[in-house]
């Protein structure tokens, strides 16, 4: 039993580490998906007259 525990199974601590990094990976994955989703949504907007729009933004005054 002791042998099996030492060789075969990860300790609770190691297991916790694995779970945490899986969780972080999942968060990162879903974050990327979220960013892509948002970018998909505004893709059309960015393709339309982006240069003209940016150049047209001129303010006078201000501090």
């Amino acid at each position, binding site marked *: 039993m002791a042998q099996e525990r030492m060789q075969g199974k990860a300790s609770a601590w190691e297991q916790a580490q694995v779970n945490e990094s899986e969780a972080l990976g999942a968060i990162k994955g879903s974050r990327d998906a979220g960013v892509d989703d948002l970018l998909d949504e505004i893709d059309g907007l960015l393709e339309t007259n982006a240069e003209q729009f940016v150049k047209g933004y*001129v303010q*006078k005054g201000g501090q």
Partner: protein
Amino acid sequence: MITRVIGLETEYGLAYDAGSTRPQTTEEVARRLFAPVVEWGRSTNVFLLNGSRLYLDVGSHPEVATAECVDPLELLEQDRAGVLTLARLVSAAEDSLRAEGLEGRIHLFRNNVDSAGNSFGCHENYLIPRRLEYRRLTEQLLPFLVTRQLLSGAGHVAKTEQGPRLVLSQRAEHMWEGVSASSTRSRPMINTRDEPHADAERFRRLHVIVGDTNMAEGSTLLKTVSTSLVLSLLETARVMPSWAIANPVKALREVSRDADGATLITLEDGRTVTALQLQEYFLSAASAHAEAEGVAGGLVGEVLALWGRTLDAWRGGDLDSVKSTLDFAAKRELLTRYAERHGVRLDDPRVARLELAYHDVAPGAGLREGLEARGLLRRFTDAERVDAAQETPPSGTRAQIRSRFLAAARAAGVEHQVDWLHLKLTQDPGRTVLLPDPFATSDAAAQALIDELLG
């Protein structure tokens, strides 16, 4: 929290995308935007029921100055309520455009630069005691402000000779002095103009104009609370190590351009430190001070933890842990992801358009709500409270009195004028009420006036 009155003044950039119909000048759009305000307030410079000031500044900048806040979360609510108020004006102005057959869209940016290189600001106001040695205080604060962009820089794509690069601050390239009295010509980081808007014998107003305008509520929270804590620390007048920077403006720009916390800063005494080391000093000193004052729990504790996490992120060269909280990291993720997906460089006009969308607060045009709804950006405020804050003043300050007076005068239909210090009935100027204490939430003379109006 060490009680301090804080207020934010934000200048908004205005743009009109005419579509296929007749173009409008910025001045025309600004006039249309403020038409409902002029109708009820007879001016483009009014105070609202939440105690804030809404006005049209030089150059057709809509501007909102929040009421005096003592609670940092209420400051976030008031700041965001200002956005809602302006967004509703945009909707109304677009309706009036439609009524004239015009199809354009109005855009309103919370940022600090336009395409021509003009800069405008988000000014922070912190109430400080008059008894302090102002010169010493501002000199000691400057090294903190120079490096504070590691916490609250809005991020920006700058064009350099080596190509486009992501820098920390939109504002850094537009600062020309450390501490001075001018505001537009030779823009300083701290403006020394002495307008306390309060009892000048007791108070002074520290006017910080070096900060970027933030979209992420986490950035605004970290910016204002960390600055307030550092001020509290400096106010103790305890002997502190000198971090006076030899050339603050040069350092400010280099920290922004390097955007990695590792910038070497030369001090007046010849030593060199990194930007990160300066921030580490201020964090540890501010934390110790908060502990000693017994205020290191609650929101302050949360902000101190965020401050620490942010510096850890810079030290480790990995900003993942703050990208759902702070502008610089969130925006960098968005811009680089877009550029990667489309195989374009950061100086592509579409990336610049995306950067503007990040700062746009016109209804349906900006990204903040989409980022928050997807859990990509943490929202600290409650939407219902922000909505209510459009007409509800923050707690614990004279904004409460101003609000009650405005409500009463309007209900009575009586002509009146207010500013930060005064409440006045136009027909009865002899009874003008002065509110010299920003912490007062009631005033006998004001109440008498209000009671009469409500009569």
